[in-house]
């Protein structure tokens, strides 16, 4: 087998180990949350007995270690459990499965993240390459200044600014991004236009600056001077000689920002009232809906691990030293 496959399999194994460790951390930190679901739902006035009965129904009376292994074992089987909410001491069970609650929200989040990524990643790389090509020019400086500005302004402020300009002054896009599955693609895209622009402005700077720095870092290499002395033009040097050696750092920063689009956009979701997974998690924390919180946290952790794994693999396959050992 090619050594690269072995490396990938090893990384995959390490990723699973990491996920396992993370699951333990998530479980124990959720247990540390003050108060519990029983009290939160039944209120201060509930009698000791009612609370105890409710906790027993939810399985909260069992020891933590046992609960952890039951939970982790269920996840391994693909069962994320049942939400705490919707159950009531009244005896009518209207609770929903965690998977059923998360699925539409996750789909929305991935939709927003996907559209943003399709715009932001190529834009950032093209800006990074072109600023490296014309470095220290007015073009380079103005792009750098602009992206630095957008990354320095808090995302909610950009969001409100965009609403002010594109929803209030010119009514181009809706200010609310409520979507539902029945909408057509065009309608959905128009609904998420403002959050997409907001997120793009937030993440482009980081990726673009890393791309530019990675390329410029290579421009001092002897093989770049050699390429010049072989008559290569500036764009050839950037694209043919520097970029193939810069994929690893670029992939890492792209992976980091894509992960951010999945796990870190709750503020933007709140501003635009977008039904994404971030809001769901925050709501669940407030209501002490532990199974949902844990499931969201596991999805977030898995996203980070998977994207970083992909970045690592890109780093390996674009490096001939690793791909073609002696």
């Amino acid at each position: 087998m090619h050594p690269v496959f072995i490396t990938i399999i090893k990384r995959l194994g390490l990723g699973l180990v990491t996920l396992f460790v993370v699951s333990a951390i998530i479980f124990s930190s959720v247990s540390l949350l003050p108060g519990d679901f029983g009290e939160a739902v039944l209120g201060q006035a509930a009698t000791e007995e009612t609370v105890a009965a409710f906790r027993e129904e939810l399985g909260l009376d069992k020891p933590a270690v046992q609960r952890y292994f039951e939970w982790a074992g269920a996840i391994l089987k693909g069962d994320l459990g049942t939400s705490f909410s919707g159950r009531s001491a009244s005896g009518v069970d209207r609770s929903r499965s965690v998977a059923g609650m998360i699925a539409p929200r996750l789909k929305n989040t991935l939709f927003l993240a996907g559209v943003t990524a399709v715009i932001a990643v190529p834009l950032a790389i093209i800006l990074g390459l072109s600023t490296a090509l014309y470095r220290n020019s007015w073009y380079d400086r103005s792009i750098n200044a602009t992206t630095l500005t957008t990354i320095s302004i808090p995302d909610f402020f950009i969001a409100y600014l965009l609403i002010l300009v594109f929803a209030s002054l010119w009514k181009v896009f809706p200010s609310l991004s409520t979507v539902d599955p029945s909408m057509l693609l065009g309608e959905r895209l128009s609904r998420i236009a403002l959050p997409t622009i907001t997120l793009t402005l937030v993440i482009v700077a980081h990726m673009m600056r890393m791309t530019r720095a990675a390329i410029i870092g290579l421009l001092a290499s002897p093989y770049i001077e050699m390429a010049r002395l072989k008559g290569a033009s500036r764009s050839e040097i950037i694209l043919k000689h520097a970029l193939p050696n810069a994929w690893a750092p670029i992939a890492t920063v792209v992976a980091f920002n894509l992960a951010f689009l999945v796990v870190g956009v709750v503020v933007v979701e709140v501003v635009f009232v977008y039904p994404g997974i971030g809001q769901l998690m925050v709501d669940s924390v407030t209501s002490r809906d532990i199974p949902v919180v844990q499931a969201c946290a596991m999805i977030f952790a898995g996203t980070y691990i998977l994207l970083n794994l992909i970045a690592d693999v890109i780093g390996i396959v674009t490096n001939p030293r690793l791909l073609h050992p002696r």
Partner: protein
Amino acid sequence: MSIDNTQEDSQQDILLDMRNIRIEGFSDEQWHPIIKGVDLTLKRGQIMGLIGESGAGKSTLGLAAMGFARPGCRFTEGEVNFNGTDLLKLKEVERRKYWGTKIAYVAQSAAAAFNPAQRLIDQTIESANRMQLRPEAQSREDAVDLYKSLHLPDPGTIGERYPHQVSGGQLQRVMTAMAMSARPDLIIFDEPTTALDVTTQVEVLASMREIVEQHNTAAIYITHDLAVVAQMADVIKVLRYGEEVEQAQTRTMLTEPKEAYTRSLWSVRSLEKPEEAGDDIVLSMQDIHAAYGAVPVLQGININLPRGKTVAVVGESGSGKSTAARVITGLLPQSQGEVKFNGEVLPSQLKDRTPEQLRQIQMIYQMADTAMNPRQTVEKIIGRPLELYHNLSGAKKAARIDELLNMIELDESFLDRLPGELSGGQKQRICIARALAANPDVIICDEVTSALDQIVQEGILKLLLRLQQEFGISYLFITHDIATVKAISDEIVVMYQGKVVEQGLKSEILSPPHPEYTELLLSSVPDMDPDWLTNLLDSRVSSD
């Protein structure tokens, strides 16, 4: 042919005519002159050797022949007439059309000058492809032919490899093929064999010379090694401080240089210490085996160092010379065998050695730059071992530091300087003083002169010899340079692939008959004789 005709011919034959080249470099917030008005004329098919010490402006002048100035440098005056066109008057877009196709460049470190992400053949034919000199398939075939004529192994497939998959000597030849691919009129060779072992250097020099002659390509050959330039060049130009010292035909230059500076360059190699035998063994390695992880590096070596004498350890890179030094100092514990100092076995681990044992064996490194803390002054660097080993402080320490500085022929004005404020030779002297401060019995010198210019080398070697006579220090002198060996050693150890080929007195090792490897090593060291390479190749062919 009449005299007039000859003159006219030679006028037409001029390929490159550089006039009054002046180049400045930017450092410390201001522009400094690097090249101060040099002329250079090269005929078609002629090879010119450019020699001088580091900082003389050789590379800058070589690149200037392409109309190229490195970032941070600029032309302030001059013309670079190539085939009648002044390259400096062209826009860069126009100038680029000459680069790689009409004028090609071969860099010093092939390992760094090849793009690690591209296959060799794609890089070889890049320039020819860009200018569409011929169909790509034809360029590829031509590249294979070039690989063949440069005597590369597997010429048909070596181009499919990546740079890290071939050796340094092979890469240097692939780079020559790359330069030759577009059939340029001129190739600039910038120290192309400096990074190679002597045994590899011979092969690379021979194939370079052959291919340049075959295609009647003119060349500028930049080097600091006189013996190498003698093999390659028709004419030699000597540079110093960005100015021309003199220029003459190779043979004339070697036999009767006009300028004192040139003669001083020539004379360095004549330093030779009379050998002395010694029976009192101060340090011995007995049947040492050592490995990096699972890779065995030393396979049962025995080396004896007589007291007050110098043993030179020679061999090419990868032969285990430096590993032997690491075992002696305890940095790399051996897997088998013993290191004895004054008859006592030294613990193999550094941490098990007593301060006294550490004091007795000191080390000087190849790169003086990286062997000193750049944030410490000379006073601190030399003072530290005095505190550590001799508990000196205050006035006694200061007096001893002065004494040590005098020993290395420097004075108190150096006390407050940082390593960055010293020249290469001065840095190495400070490293020697630091080693001396411990009052060691043995100093291990690992390639201590390799990074230095020849004149500076001579100074360091003389200093080391004088210190040996005064203090009876024993040196284990690791080097790959045979001229250095002749200059300093009493005994020689020849190493090859982790084994000792032979150890003996200098005169015994250097005079025939030799074991096969020693013969190859010694015969590969270039001589100042311009016919040396030709004769060597002839003799190797006839003995095959």
